[in-house]
């Protein structure tokens, strides 16, 4: 079955070059992608993820606010009873990765990540979380 991914921009970060490109590259790889558009609240992202019944949520954050925003998205999803995995792409310094994982983020992708690496990770996450 086709992997379904919700790609989302949370917070005030309007940089969408990365999210636009990754959306198209994921589609090229045969993944079904739903993109939320800019300036979403964590709650809105969680609701969309549940409504769209996606397999993975991917957040794009380039403003440096990932430590604040990503855990809020994870919490909002769990609050809605969803255990869908959340991954974060953006400028994420090495020191920030462990706290993000501890807050429930499943994987992070820093600058220069290859599309193969991203696709493989998404597929693994999906396999390991699907019943």
């Amino acid at each position: 079955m086709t992997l379904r991914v919700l790609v989302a921009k949370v917070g005030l970060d309007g940089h969408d070059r990365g999210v636009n490109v990754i959306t198209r590259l994921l589609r090229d790889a045969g993944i079904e992608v739903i993109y939320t558009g800019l300036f979403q609240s964590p709650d809105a992202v969680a609701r969309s993820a549940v409504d769209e019944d996606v397999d993975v949520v991917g957040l794009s954050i380039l403003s440096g606010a990932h430590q604040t925003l990503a855990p809020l998205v994870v919490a909002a999803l769990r609050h809605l009873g969803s255990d869908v995995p959340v991954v974060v792409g953006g400028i994420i310094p090495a020191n920030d990765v462990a706290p993000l994982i501890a807050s429930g983020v499943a994987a992070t992708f820093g600058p220069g990540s290859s599309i193969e690496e991203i696709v493989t990770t998404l597929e693994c996450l999906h396999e390991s979380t699907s019943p």
Partner: protein
Amino acid sequence: MWGRACGKSETSFADSGVRVIYRSGRSQWHDAYEESPAARSHATTQSGVDLDPVYGPDDAEFPGVYPYTRGIHPAMYRSKLWTMRMFAGFGTAPETNQRFRDIISSGGTGISTAYDMPTLLGLDSDDPRALGEVGRCGVAIDTLDDVRDLYEGIDLSATTTSMTINAPAAPIFAMFVANAEAHGVARHLLGGTLQNDILKEYQAQHEYVFPPRASLRLVRDTMVFATQEMPRWHPLSVSGYHIREAGSTAAQEVAFTLANGFAYVELARRAGLALDSFAPKLSFFFNAHIDFFEEVAKYRCARRLWATWMRDFYGALDERSWQLRFHAQTAGVSLTAQQPDNNHARTAIEALAAVMGGAQSLHTNSFDEAWTLPSSDAARVALRTQQVIAHETNVTRVADPLGGSWFVESLTDQLQREVGTLLEEILEIGGGSMLEGCLIGIDNGWFEGHIADSAYVHERAVQSGERIVVGVNAFTEIESSSPLNQAEGDGESRQRERLARVRRSRSDEAVRESLTTLRTDALECDTNLMEALMGTARAHATLGEIMNTLADVFGRYQAPER
């Protein structure tokens, strides 16, 4: 709302710019040179070989002469070096003020403020939506008190300042003027630049608040105010930088930026400003990317096209209206998080391209910016990079040193043709009006589509290895070193405390009155809002209160779903 067409020719104007061969000639240049500050200056190479101020056959294009392909001044940097304007901002106003002072004491010749995301979107630091973003990507500005602390101890009549802000440009500008006047500096003495280019926000950077036409009313008001009252101020910096960073090609960067520039020219004319009173106050802001010769050709073709269109299409008579002045910034997007030390080399090459291309002002990025806000040390090295180019390399002694190169001249012409075709298309979309073309292209996603397509093509080439990025997809044997100066800290809570203090100490009644006046004025389309905005600044209204008052009248922009 807007009338139609203000150009005088109907068809295929862009083409004609290519076919007409400009031969300004040495004699015209010579007259201009004799009146320049560099007249009769003497320069040699490091080893003592004499250097002319410019080279070329007598019938070539020359700098300082229409269409200014080779630069806007006859002797370029022999007359005046570019302004080394460093962009900075983080945390609270006092912290950024300290960085400004560091820049000035290190020999920086201008300052430029980076605002945080909440400020750029007109939100107060205590707004729930600002959580996690206060003071992070720039400095937080909520009230006049922050503006006061930002410029504390800096002589605003001697140092030119630049404000990189767009949707809330008018209120922030009003706070700046009100603060200067409160410190005894009259508005006509203030020199600097307000970015204020809202069109590219809808096209590329996405820091918008109000719908486009309402935003343009604020742009109009700042332009009229500055034109009438602030002779040293540039109220608008038409910015291609963000268009390029969002993924456009060089030709798209120039085309969309010039189209936006022409749109503002049409806006100013509709507001009743005489073209030649306003156009010389426009400035531009371009990217300095890594493809060295393409960048040099890009600046050359941008100057030629601006001059041609302003003179022949818009009918400007003053030669200063034909001259495209620009600030450049090295390409943030070219910096790599991997092996960040390599970014020193990238920035130096890009800065050299901006100088070879005749920039009036330059910001050099710090090598650590792929990861974080620049550390003070990294920002100093970035400034030193400009100083090495300016004072050691001798490239400043001859104007347009690459002019006449068969390659660079051909590339200039090729880019000009590509840009001309795009300009022609935007004009057609707008039914003969560049302003309408820009607005329609924003509404229907034309600009964003072009930019996203180019970004995608670029990324595919990087992913496939066809385009090499050193340290990213080639030469990756070294482990990437991790980031350097993590600008963490409690800037957010400090700023909230600062704001709470202002809220406690100000007169709520004065705030209410000033906001009521603003609202009343905003309802009258023809009223200039600058005085009302300065009233809100003096009453210590917050940026969020001011923007919410305007949003009640203007509405908020919702990007169309695509």
